[in-house]
């Protein structure tokens, strides 16, 4: 059992590609070894911005030898009329390196026995360059020099060591050997590795912390130590930490500061400058206020770190200077002027200007505000926010820091005297910004956010810009998912199908299917019964809140005793009604049996309260009142009575049952087997 080290030395890999790349390398190596039947215990991963490395532990000395039988021609065509071996058999034998007499007959076919010798690990590993490294795939590729070979960044060196022996191979102009390299500056030398097992200890000696998890822990510990030393609070943002970890090989955290006068600029702006532009960690004092300091990480040791601190502070000042400039200049602008200029800003070339988008959103928002039961004052706020909510796109600050769109809008609106609801709605209309992202808190913001999303979907579908497959450049899936989450959270009840039919458009059916698919996806993240989800999203009216609720309610009862018979009775009703050609009015005088009368009474009493009944109660009513009444009905009457008027009347009664239950779900889609 031996260990094998493979290290690919590269020019700096983009930070966000380091982890996926090393995972890919390990997976490809695993597949390669398995295909070659070379056994091993495990693969250990190492990665830095300049290298991807793996150690395969417990590697067998050679692949296993195997004996296999290769299927050949059938016995029918094995011999010709004279009893001689046919061409087919001779050809097959030759191909297997045997003669026809070596073949064995099993059942109707001839087989060749084949022995494949084990291959030495070294020989297999010598193909790693072409079979593992060259086959790697990336989101962006590059070529370099006069080569046509594509990779994530130019390959500078390769280490390939089986214990103490080099397993040589060539890739492009690089020959694998035993020489790695140390830190770019702290140990700018070739590092000779005598043995694969020296890697984990030898590299840190040369200022390269090759174990990415260990390096990350080291960075975290250093940052927390500095924060505690200075009595600051700091959050180790996961993404930022991952990025910082993948732009350093030897981390040393340090503290910098800036003039407290910049704290007059909104904290969001300062944090964006520090975190997004400079990859610094912002710090807060014990009261939770932003402190005029930051923590950053150097790719090097602590020597001469004072230069690094000074340099970083200087860069930050220039950025903050710009931010302060925009903060002051933007306050001189008038919201009305900016809004007027939005007429010249394109929403999408095929759709029109932002101003037009805002006008449509305003109309949609007004109708949503009615549905949401907003007060007159809140409705005025909705209208006002819809008139101005994109104005900050034309401020200097958002021009410079586009991630602050909405955030700056709220601040500038407040300064301009807009009320808190209107201002908050400007910020909140972008929410949620991710699948699990926060939703708007205010009612006005929820209405505006939903209306903005509805108009986006209507407009893009209307000009044929419809997402397909992985292609969704305008993030309409995210918008719809956000819309669904807002509607559900706000507990709005309305029929989306009727709602969008109030607006012009060609593709309303497609839009509804698109929305359904998103609801389905959201539900299947939490529920595993496809049939129940399918039933809920195919309820008779397109009430999103109901659909979501129904799915959870029905799923919650799926294990209870009366579930199965109840669903079966309702399904049977649905199927009978589906077959009927036309449905007549119910005529109670035509009832012949008590069971009809009883079912009718249940239906009438439920109809009166159905609209406002919560889903859980609806379902209980279906299971405990309606379904038993249906069951008795089926037991005591023949629906398909000979008297046509009686028959039609019974179908009419069932159709009322179906109308009730369909509001909740299409129960015939639920599998009770």
């Amino acid at each position: 059992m031996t260990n094998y080290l493979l290290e690919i030395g590269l020019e700096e890999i983009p930070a966000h590609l380091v982890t996926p790349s090393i995972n890919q390398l390990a997976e490809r190596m695993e597949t390669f070894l398995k295909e070659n039947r070379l056994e091993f215990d495990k693969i250990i991963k190492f990665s830095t911005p300049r290298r991807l490395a793996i150690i395969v532990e417990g590697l067998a000395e050679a692949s296993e030898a195997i004996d296999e039988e290769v299927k050949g021609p059938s016995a029918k065509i094995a011999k010709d009329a004279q009893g001689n071996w046919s061409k087919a058999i001779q050809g097959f034998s030759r191909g297997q390196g045997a003669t026809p007499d070596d073949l064995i007959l099993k059942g109707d076919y001839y087989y060749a026995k084949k022995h494949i010798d084990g291959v030495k690990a070294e020989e297999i590993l010598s193909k790693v360059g072409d079979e593992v490294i060259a086959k790697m795939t990336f989101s962006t590729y590059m070529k370099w020099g006069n080569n046509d070979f594509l990779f994530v960044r130019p390959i500078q060196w390769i280490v390939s060591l089986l214990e103490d022996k080099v397993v040589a191979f060539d890739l492009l102009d690089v020959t694998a050997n035993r020489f790695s390299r140390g830190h770019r500056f702290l140990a700018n030398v070739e590092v000779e590795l005598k043995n694969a097992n020296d890697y984990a200890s030898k590299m840190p000696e040369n200022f390269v912390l090759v174990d990415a998890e260990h390096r990350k822990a080291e960075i975290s510990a250093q940052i927390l130590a500095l924060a505690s030393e200075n009595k600051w609070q700091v959050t180790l943002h996961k993404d930022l930490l991952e990025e910082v970890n993948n732009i350093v090989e030897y981390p040393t955290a340090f503290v910098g500061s800036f003039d407290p006068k910049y704290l007059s600029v909104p904290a969001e702006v300062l944090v964006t400058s520090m975190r997004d532009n400079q990859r610094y960690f912002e710090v807060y004092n014990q009261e939770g206020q932003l402190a005029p300091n930051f923590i950053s990480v150097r790719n090097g040791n602590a020597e001469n770190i004072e230069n690094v601190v000074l340099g970083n502070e200087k860069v930050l000042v220039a950025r903050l200077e710009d931010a302060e400039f925009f903060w002051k200049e933007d306050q001189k602008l008038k919201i009305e002027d900016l809004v007027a200029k939005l007429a010249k800003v394109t929403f999408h070339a095929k759709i029109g200007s932002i101003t037009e988008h805002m006008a449509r959103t305003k109309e949609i928002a007004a109708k949503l505000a009615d549905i949401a039961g907003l007060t007159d004052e809140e409705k005025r706020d909705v209208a006002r926010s819809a008139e101005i909510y994109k104005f900050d796109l034309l401020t200097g600050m958002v021009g410079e820091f586009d991630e602050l769109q909405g955030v700056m809008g709220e601040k500038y609106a407040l300064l301009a005297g807009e009320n808190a609801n209107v201002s908050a709605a400007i910020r909140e209309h972008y929410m949620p910004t991710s699948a699990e992202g926060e939703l708007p808190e205010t009612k006005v913001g929820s209405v505006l956010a939903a209306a903005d999303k509805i108009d986006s979907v209507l407009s893009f579908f209307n000009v044929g810009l419809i997402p397909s497959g992985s292609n969704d450049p305008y993030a309409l899936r995210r918008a719809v998912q956000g819309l669904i989450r807002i509607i559900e959270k706000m507990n709005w009840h309305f029929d989306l199908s009727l709602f969008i039919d109030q607006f012009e458009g060609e593709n309303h059916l497609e839009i509804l299917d698109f929305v359904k698919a998103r609801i389905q996806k959201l539900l299947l993240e939490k529920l595993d019964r496809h049939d129940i989800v399918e039933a809920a999203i195919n309820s008779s009216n397109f009430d999103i809140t109901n659909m979501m609720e129904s799915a959870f309610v029905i799923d919650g009862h799926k294990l209870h005793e009366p579930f199965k018979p109840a669903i079966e009775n309702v399904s049977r009703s649905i199927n009978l009604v589906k077959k009927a050609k036309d449905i007549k009015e119910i005529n109670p005088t035509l009832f012949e049996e008590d069971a009809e009368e009883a079912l009718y009474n249940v239906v009438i009493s439920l109809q009166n309260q159905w609209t406002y009944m919560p889903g859980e109660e609806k379902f209980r009513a279906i299971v405990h009142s309606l379904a038993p009444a249906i069951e008795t009905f089926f037991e005591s009457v023949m629906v398909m009575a000979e008297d046509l008027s009686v028959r039609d009347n019974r179908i009419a009664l069932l159709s009322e049952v179906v109308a009730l239950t369909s509001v909740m779900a299409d129960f015939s889609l639920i599998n009770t087997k």
Partner: protein
Amino acid sequence: MANKKLAFQDIILTLQGFWSKQGANLMQAYDNEVGAGTMSPYTFLRSNGPEPWGAAYVQPSRRPADGRYGENPNRLFQHHQFQVVLKPSPKNIQELYLQSLAELGIDALEHDIRFVEDNWENPSMGCAGIGWEVWIDGQECTQFTYFQQVGGIEVDSVTSEITYGLERIATVIQEVDSVYDLEWGNGVAYGDIFKEPEYEHSKFAFEESNQELLLKLFGEYEQEALDLLDKGLVHPAYDYILKSSHTFNLLDARGAVSVTERAGYMHRVRTMARKVAKTFIEERAKLGFPLLKDEALREKYLGKKGKYTKIVEGEEK
């Protein structure tokens, strides 16, 4: 820190000395308004086709929208780039760059030097490359790019481009907070030379430029460029493309271009850029790519028959 602090002009001299020894020909700044050293024909045109090439030059680079009336410590209407292009990209190009910093007195052990991913793109010129911005103590000082596509055409031999932001580098070397406090040379401050033009150009670009004239000029420059391209006059045509591009930048700074129109203008510049890049290769092909001397590479790019077929077969499909 290094004992003597290099003046701005000494930085230029040092870089010229260093790169001229690495195979770069010292060219002079291009005499046309450009937004970046990349726009010089010594980079843009020469990075297409299979011929080797090396050049280094200072390029004053005008970016009207970045003007700050001489009030921001490091944002400028016009800054200076030191541009190095080597084609094909040498294997040790990163090391060469770091050596050049050492020559400037920037000791890597006294600073924090990072190669941070920054894939460069100039959509209006149909250019894309893979590379980094180089940070020195958190300051972006250099753009480092391996060209992949120029003028909408996938490159043959890859050009490595190093663009030093001279003002940024100089503030690191001279340890000053504002570019205006830099010493240009002989005790003359950068501010003494450039503060006034910075103010005037900002005032001009943001407040006083004649929009109607600029709009008219854009159209005329564009027409001239297209006419010249039809006549196969690559270099004069390219000059007019640069003029129209700069005119567009002035219009943009003035806020005279809406987002919709912006896309339209960029498209027009891109169309010209594609044409000129293609015409340049065609003209070089007619000359037989005289700078491509290596026999193996001639065969790689021109085939056994010595005929360059990529533009005809590849680009226009």
